[in-house]
């Protein structure tokens, strides 16, 4: 670093942006973790079926896989558009 570098504009900090983006993507990855491999395909099939009747976006279908005691629970949430 020299005198000229000292006055040069510092690049904008970007580490925070990296962290925020990773928080979102990792949370998403973990939501899928532990569930059966077919969940993403199941979600796509469900989307296709629902879209036969009403147009919804990918985010409007939430497929969650949970364990409750001895049972595996598949939780399905579909948000329909406002009429």
């Amino acid at each position: 670093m020299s005198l000229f570098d000292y006055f040069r504009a510092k690049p904008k900090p970007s580490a925070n942006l990296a962290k925020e983006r990773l928080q979102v993507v990792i949370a998403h990855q973990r939501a899928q973790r532990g569930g059966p491999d077919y969940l993403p395909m199941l979600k796509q099939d469900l989307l296709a079926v629902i879209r036969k009747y009403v147009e919804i976006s990918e985010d409007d279908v939430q497929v969650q896989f949970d364990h409750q005691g001895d049972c595996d629970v598949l939780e399905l949430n579909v948000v329909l558009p406002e009429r």
Partner: protein
Amino acid sequence: MARIIVVTSGKGGVGKTTTSASLAAGLARRGHKTAVIDFDVGLRNLDLIMGCERRVVYDFVNVINAEATLNQALIRDKHVTDLYVLPASQTREKEALTQDGVERVLDELAAMDFDYVVCDSPAGIEHGARMALYFADEAVIVTNPEVSSVRDSDRILGILQSRSRRAERGDEPIREHLLITRYNPTRVAEGQMLGLEDIIELLAIPSIGVIPECASVLEASNAGRPVIIEEQSTAGQAYADAVARLLGEERPLRFIDVHKPGFFKRLFGGTP
């Protein structure tokens, strides 16, 4: 009973082989008989990093296929006593690593009184990587302070927690250790690079060390020496600390703070 440690990351090029070589050499230097196995079938590189590429005769797949004995295939390290290298095959398909075959080799190493077996995983999450982690007791997840590496480390954590033998059997889970490599404290201080606290928080696993970005890593690899035996280098010392922590010792983190250059150095420049 040999303790099996997988060095893994998901992403390629983050320092798995460098780390495998140094951890294995460090464990052997601490008096533990150690074998390090290259699981990267088709892209063997551990032999180069360990400096034994010209002594490879038989390899991991030869042993699995009973074309050679384990004793014939193991290469005794020139730099460190009690350290042995089992190279990967350069020509076979990855599927040559069968689960039964890998298990037999690991059992045989245990019977030969090895204390530690370090498994150098290939990049990715496919067959070779799964075989490298399947039998692990501990996992060292090598991560660079960079978005794709952190994301891939989280993916590999998911696989460790669901697809390992310990997970399938419902045994005590694999002990996970985060190892951050190519860390640049100056860039972290400037807000240009993810800090170690951020990475630990994102991945939610304890850290076993931080290896600073260091010219000695490349120089040691040029010479075919695990960087941990370069005792003057910061990376070598950071790896020695990581080995001590792996053995359960407490060591304060080093080389993670910025040394501010003095006024004159800032004014007139100079190498940082």
